């Protein structure tokens, strides 16, 4: 099993959520985060003064899935999240050792 940690623009959340669901993804967690990468934030203007804002709002989507078929899911997310401009985000893929469903105690892929 793999965990995908997907950092995207807030405006791409709906598209990414639909892409993941279409790929058979059974659940996900979504968090509002702030951060920066190469995009290095943006300028804001208050009463004539310019401020460099480093940390900009992003969305983090986390989901765990079977290792088979991972590449198709990654491709679907890329399609959904990409605008082509700096600041589109990143996907981190981690190995997952174990999953346990709390209600039944089922483990592994059955616990997903």
């Amino acid at each position, binding site marked *: 099993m793999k965990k995908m940690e997907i950092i995207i623009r807030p405006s791409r959340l709906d598209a990414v959520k639909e892409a993941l669901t279409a790929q058979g993804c059974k659940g996900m967690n979504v968090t509002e985060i702030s951060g920066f990468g190469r995009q290095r934030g943006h300028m*804001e*203007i*208050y*009463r*004539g*003064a*310019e*401020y*460099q*804002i480093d940390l900009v709002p992003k969305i983090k989507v986390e989901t765990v899935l079977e290792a088979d078929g991972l590449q198709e899911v990654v491709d679907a997310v890329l399609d959904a999240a990409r605008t082509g401009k700096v600041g589109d985000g990143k996907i981190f893929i981690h190995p997952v050792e174990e999953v346990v469903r709390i209600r039944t105690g089922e483990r592994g892929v059955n616990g997903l």
Partner: protein
Amino acid sequence: MNGADTVFIIISAALVMFMTPGLALFYGGLARSKNVLGTIMQSFIALALVSLVWVLWGYSLAFGTDIGGLIGGFNFLFLKGVGQEPNPQLAGNIPHLVFMIFQCMFAVITVALITGAFAERMKFGAFLLFAVLWTTFVYSPLCHWVWGGGWMGSMGALDFAGGAVVHMSSGSAALACALVLGRRQGFGQKAFIPHNLPMTVTGAAILWFGWFGFNAGSALAADGLAANAFVTTHLAAAMAILGWISVEKMHRGQPTTLGAASGAVAGLVAVTPAAGFIGPIASIVLGFLAGGICYAGVLLKERLDYDDSLDVVGIHGLGGIWGALGTGLFASLAVNGSGANGLFFGNAGQLFIQLISIVATCAFSFVLSYVILKIVDVLIGLRVSLEDEEIGLDLSQHSETGYKF
């Protein structure tokens, strides 16, 4: 006594009261989230504390029997002789109590206006002491000079609703506060930006609404002059929005919501001394220019390097000064027979009188505020500790936080 006038001024007093919580939201949104309650509280507590000071002795010092043109006597102390009957010297058409409470709301908001200068770093207790002393030694005498039979009113200075008494005085006090308290930690290095602009715009809208009571109510009667003041007030606010965002668009490339809200307040400030002396078309010019002038005024603090955190000097100080000068330019006897003509109506002397009132008001308020701040600093200290400033006023001064997520 006149029933219609009484109704109008009672409602106007309530409108002016509403401006102070409006200001609390205006300032609260501009502060950082860790200081939202501390900032709101400084305005809100003024409703409680300044009202008490006003009723006990402030009103008497402002409107008691004149002593040498400088201050009122003690004859209205603890509201002695201030009752349901009108006082013919002050306002023969409404109960004396109504006149007193209408004036009370002006004292409250003037003190609250100053709080923008020292936002995010003043001790709550120090602010309370400052508010009592400032109402007593700055607001009440100034109010007497202009409206209570003092020298400035006798000289012929025109101040319809408080350009000098409210805005220049709070703006000058704000400059003293910014200088005496010093800059916030990290000012100029970190980005100190507003945490909730929708709150600020809501506050600006409440201020605009309340300002109709402030300016139209200052006619002290439900009459044509009140109607004139209502219209000039509205037009000046509207035009100052356009003035502010036009300059902003030229300077930074984008018109901003905060600019529109700030512009509205700048226009309301500028029209305050003029509302009952100038006509509607003049208020269009006065308001539009107020937007541009106050925009420049706000930029001034970067040049001069003082931390007037929420721009009280730039908006209320400069807006008030422009309003007083504008009154000297646009005032017309055709609008208000008991006023005067300004420069554009052939009376250059009025502009000179306005200039004297500006210098006297700003100098008096600045110097006295400076002294009061130094005294409070020696007695209990003005600033919160560096650690308290870091964690924010909400937690360090009030043991609560504005937002729970």
